[in-house]
């Protein structure tokens, strides 16, 4: 069982590190690179660097609110 835990932990660290390096590269390094370099093919246009985290944050917040609302409704129904 600890192997499964280790695998999940490793997956999480790998995901977090890759997201961090990709985002850092995208936001900080890429604006200083020439516009016709080949590396720009691997990265989405710069507007998405702001759009994607904002959308993800909005989705996360709404899911949280939905979850809280469902729990509150369920507790109220049980009391009534």
């Amino acid at each position, binding site marked *: 069982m600890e192997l499964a835990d280790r695998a999940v932990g490793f997956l999480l660290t790998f995901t*977090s590190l890759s997201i961090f390096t990709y985002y850092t590269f995208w936001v900080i390094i890429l604006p200083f690179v020439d516009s016709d370099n080949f590396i720009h093919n691997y990265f989405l246009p710069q507007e998405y660097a702001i759009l994607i985290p904002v959308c993800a944050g909005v989705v996360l917040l709404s899911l949280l609110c939905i979850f809280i609302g469902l729990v509150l409704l369920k507790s109220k129904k049980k009391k009534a």
Partner: protein
Amino acid sequence: MLFTSFYSPASHWTPELVFIANPVKHVLKLLSLLVVISALWIGLLQASIIPQSHTWLLPIYFIVSLGCYGLFMVGVGLMRFPTCPQEALLLQQDIAEAKDFLKQKGVDVGSN
């Protein structure tokens, strides 16, 4: 730098806890760094070196990096979690002993 300073060596059976020597000083250092970087960013914005459409880049970058850092700590904690096999064995022995004792006294402990 941040991550290595958090961990303290674990004893042989307690799970690793995260200790910082003085948490208040650490938080103050972090806050001052944040204030300096945002002051720099606002200065760059006012001087029109960075176009106004890019205002929200820095806060979003900080939030994304904070989320990544949290995920990283969770993953590392999962990887380093100790399983304590001797304690697991002792626990199983205690359970068997308790079951015998209760069965003697007449309480029904069905294993489920």
